[in-house]
């Protein structure tokens, strides 16, 4: 792992510096995680009176369960849709805003603030807009002959949660793209312009490649966001329905464990999620390390 060429020689101090964070991590993360790991091999009732060790029964059951496998698929579709949409829109807006000399700041202020809105509240807002009987968007769609009903139609429901989750993520991506674009030297673009390259060509041959580190970083962050932090959005809009069409993995862990009180299965799902998180983390980390080193 990377560090400084020269370091301080102290032997005890680094441990003292690490202590607070390690203590918090161990007590509030690793210990509960270990408990989750342990209960993923058990079957128990909600109150914890009867506990049976069942080996891998919770896992084998999960992977034989079409509902769970379907939740995997839903998660992949959802995460990709949210990531690509929010990245695409944010990039478009950032490129447009960078062109502006005077109004750039006003635009970015107006685009940035949804970041502050709680996921649960974002969910309530979109519920309001798309409500089949009173929502303004549903009303407009109906005028165009589209019978919007996310309570019955799985596709409508998916579109709704994707929109709500994307809406919250655009601002974050926008900020990063703005900064990335501003750091690209003007001279490069000017040189290309003198060679006769139009704006579109310049974007694809110069700007987009130079932005790719930012894009890759954001891609990972967005996938993680869509997989884990959208819980509040889904909870407040579709609650995973209809017929579990929008039940992503995190929501299922919550629903089975917290609402359904099926602790063993929920714990097994947590463990699988943790494995996915660790996998993603390693991918991201290796990429970051490589870049810093070159």
């Amino acid at each position, binding site marked *: 792992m990377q560090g*400084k*060429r*020269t*370091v*301080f020689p*102290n*032997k005890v101090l*680094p441990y003292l510096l*690490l202590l*607070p*964070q*390690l203590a*918090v991590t161990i*007590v*509030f*993360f690793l*210990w*509960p995680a270990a408990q989750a790991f342990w209960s993923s091999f058990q079957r128990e009732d909600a109150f914890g009176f009867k506990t049976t060790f069942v080996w891998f029964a919770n896992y084998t059951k999960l992977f034989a369960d079409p509902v769970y496998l379907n939740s995997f698929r839903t998660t992949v579709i959802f995460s990709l849709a949210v990531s690509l949409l929010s990245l695409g829109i944010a990039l*478009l*807006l950032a490129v*447009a*805003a960078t062109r*502006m000399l005077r*109004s750039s700041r006003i*635009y*970015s*202020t*107006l685009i*940035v603030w949804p970041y*502050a*809105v*709680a*996921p*649960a*509240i*974002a969910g*309530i*807002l979109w519920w*309001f807009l798309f409500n089949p009987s*009173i929502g*303004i968007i549903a009303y407009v769609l109906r005028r165009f002959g589209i019978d919007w009903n996310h309570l019955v139609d799985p596709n409508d429901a998916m579109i709704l949660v994707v929109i709500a989750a994307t*809406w919250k993520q*655009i601002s974050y991506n926008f900020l*990063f793209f703005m*900064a990335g674009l501003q*750091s690209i030297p003007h001279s490069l673009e000017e040189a290309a*312009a003198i060679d006769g390259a139009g*704006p579109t060509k310049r974007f694809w041959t110069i700007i987009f490649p130079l932005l790719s*580190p930012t894009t890759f*970083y954001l891609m990972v962050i967005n996938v*993680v966001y869509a997989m*884990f932090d959208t*819980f509040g959005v889904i909870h407040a809009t579709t609650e995973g329905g209809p017929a579990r069409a929008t039940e992503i993995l*995190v929501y299922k862990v*919550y629903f089975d464990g*917290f609402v359904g009180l099926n602790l063993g299965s929920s714990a097994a799902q*947590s463990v699988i999620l*943790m494995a996915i998180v*660790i996998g*993603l983390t390693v991918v991201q980390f290796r990429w970051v390390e490589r870049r810093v080193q070159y």
Partner: protein
Amino acid sequence: MVENRPLLNFLSHLLLILGVAVVVFPVYVAFIASTHGPNDFLSGVVPLWPGPHLLENYSQMLTTGLSSSGAPPLLPMMWNSLIMAVGVAVGKISISILSAFAIVYFRFPFRTLAFWMIFITLMLPVEVRIVPTFQVVASLGMLNNYGGLIVPLIASATATFLFRQFFLTVPDELMEAARVDGAGPLKFFWDILLPLSRTNIAALFIILFVLGWNQYLWPLLITTDPHLYTVVMGIKRMAAVADAEPRWNIVMAAVMLAALPPVLVIVAMQRLFVKGLTETEK
């Protein structure tokens, strides 16, 4: 801008205006909802123009609105949210800047192990590990106090990671010069590293403030004392009405008020935010 193209400028403005409209629209509708009478939206399409009840709804919200739904008044809840948001932000930043300092500027046995232990907590949301975490907090006697609200949430590694990345970009010469001057690690940290990290700290403060402010499930689970209610809990209490319709106009008024502090923080500190985040990440 490299050359002047009026058409492209026009398109860019159009695009941005469209983008802003999409971003603002849901909140605009919430605002509109908060200016109408109690039953104006459940019987028909949500109106698009402000209604006559703006002052009435907001003053009711600030004085009796929430308390008639059985929750404590708004201001104490905002205060609790503030304590929680600031506590989470300050706590996370403090512990992670120290550990990032240890990981980057020292070499010691188990350094990699320590780093990974912190690092894997990066992404798992608290909702997923909520039941075992609750038990831990309960056995430490931290239910029903600000400690229990704040401390478990600072167990995440985002901040450590960002500080580490930033420290790696700090030129080695700075540290070597400090050592030549006879400065110890703590003095170096305090006099040089901390001032350099100002923008990063500001950026993280915003992110973590927003995170702390927006918590719902965790405070709900571990508090039983109404004096510890946070404002998002209060909103949920008004919206979660069994067998009846919530009073959406009042709920939306509360939503607007509750979202105001974090939005203000973001807008006010926007410049620092962008700078702090991107300097470490590029």
